[in-house]
């Protein structure tokens, strides 16, 4: 399918073990209707993987399926050699997988601070330290710590959602459109921070519609279309691929 896969293999060190490996995943919400039709992706240790694709391609479904929130019909999800297909979400968290969903990603009735505490539900001891870290990224959250997340603006919610995931210090982080609704500068900060986290050794799989930015910072990327991984390659390669540009990226950013 992709002429670029060889190149992809070249960029990532082949010696690196695979941290997350999704093979031929078939999953869906309703019986008989598959949204994912044999989708395979892989994240190696320390890699930042981007996933882009048209609306309704199944990107969110893929993340949810990996995280045990959607019924998997066949295929497997392996995290560090362990088959976790169909495992319950809270078990995955204990295995070091963190997830930021696309919708409904905050506890609306809880305050910002409590949202952060939920992020650290497993290890409440280090709360203060991690909270400082998150508020350094999103100072608004520190200032508003007692405000209920339900009353926050769209962008502020997004910050809370990111913050909650970052509180966890996961080994593998699944992000579903973390930059949506953020102001440009916040988007950049988010990308940079994700990049940084990734450099610190966390494998990140990130779904984005802010595709260019995503491709810029990721090590490798997949283009998902109709429940399948249609293209893969390094971010740079995909950005240059005219097909990808035409179908998924658009040329808006290039026009002046």
């Amino acid at each position, binding site marked *: 399918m992709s002429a670029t896969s060889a190149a992809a293999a070249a960029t990532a060190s082949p010696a690196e073990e695979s941290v997350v490996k999704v093979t031929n995943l078939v999953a869906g*919400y*309703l019986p008989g209707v598959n949204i994912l039709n044999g989708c395979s992706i892989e994240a190696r240790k320390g890699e930042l993987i981007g996933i*882009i*694709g*048209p*609306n*309704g*391609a*199944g*990107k*969110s479904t893929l993340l949810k399926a990996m995280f045990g929130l959607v019924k998997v019909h066949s295929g497997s999800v392996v995290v560090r050699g362990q088959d976790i297909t169909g495992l319950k979400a809270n078990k995955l968290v204990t295995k070091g997988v963190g997830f930021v969903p*696309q*919708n409904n990603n905050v506890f609306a009735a809880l305050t910002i601070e409590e949202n952060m505490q939920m992020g650290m539900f497993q290890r409440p001891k280090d709360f203060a330290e991690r909270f400082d870290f998150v508020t*350094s*990224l999103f*100072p*608004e959250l520190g200032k508003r710590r007692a405000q209920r997340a339900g*009353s*926050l*603006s*769209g*962008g*502020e919610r*997004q*910050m809370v959602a990111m913050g909650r995931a970052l509180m966890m210090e996961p080994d593998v982080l699944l992000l579903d*459109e973390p930059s*949506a*609704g*953020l*102001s*440009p*500068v*916040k*988007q*950049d*900060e988010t990308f*940079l921070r994700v*990049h*940084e986290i990734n*450099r610190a050794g966390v494998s990140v799989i990130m779904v984005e*519609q*802010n*595709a*260019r930015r995503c491709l*810029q*910072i990721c090590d490798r990327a997949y283009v998902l279309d109709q429940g399948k991984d249609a293209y893969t390659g390094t971010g*740079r390669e995909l*950005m*240059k691929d005219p097909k990808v540009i*035409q*179908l*998924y*990226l*658009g*040329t*808006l*950013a*290039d*026009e*002046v």
Partner: protein
Amino acid sequence: MSTHSEESRPSEEIDYMTDTRPIAAGDTAPGCKKRDPIVVAENVTRSFGGINAVDVEYLEIPRHKITALIGPNGAGKTTLFNLLTGFDTPNSGKWQFEGNSLAGVSPYKVARMGMVRTFQLTKVMGKLTVMENMRLGGSEQPGERLSKALFKGIWGGREKEITAQANVLLEKFKLDAKKDDYAASLSGGQRKLLEMARSLMVRPKLVMLDEPMAGVNPALTQSLLDHIKNLKAEGMTVLFVEHDMNMVRHIADWVVVMAEGRIVAEGPPGEVMKNPAVIDAYLGAHHDVDLGDAEGIKELAAELVADEESIVGTENAGIIAIDVVAADSDEPEPRKKDSE
């Protein structure tokens, strides 16, 4: 739909697409008068337990133009939308739409008058099909009155019309394949699209879009922008909130910048984006955060700047990397954000 504006200027046939007359009536300044405003808001304030979410002294939205409302997260954009459309009540202030005062007018009446909004956190009628969602948007449906609902003869014709209209829109918004699915089964981006398409079904005079393109695929966004631009040709006015500067630059005739509830700048997109106050309010506000991890940022920023394919550092990077660059160029002059 746009009968009102046509009546006011019956003779001159203006092509709104190419109308280049100045938008502002005088100087371009925050809260300036417009040549032909459709919405005029005065002293609209709303506070939530101490926070002034919206504090707009004076704002006019130009008619037949596309106005972008930008500003940092929590600036009060959505809240302003809520206030203008009657979904929330302000602490003070008055505002009018086409000369009619809207204070205390209930949301549905606002929409009937031709001012329709979408929601940032999407609201779709989950257990109605996509098509029914669209039809629901259609205005002036005789069949929506209880007295006529029983007789298909009365409303059947209009139903066909709006169905045709809906089909066109759905195709544009790439939702035609999902026409008969429950809206609840749409993906995040598809919901945004449906919401926007549905608001257009009303054929409003002013459509207010709250981050219409957040989560929408860039390629699709691009194709939709033309559609939005074309709304002008139909005599519509567009007011939208967006964080995607490419889109703003691409289609907006006018940009209004909000920060901490206030209008801090407005003007044509090119000018506004160079305005230091705008950079201050929208972009520079948080750069001091980066200092803690300046190393990593610099590294990445440098890497991105060095990369010729990256838009960072290039002209069309626009504002995106400014703070990174600023952080790089050492001592950031304290552009204090809450320096009141």
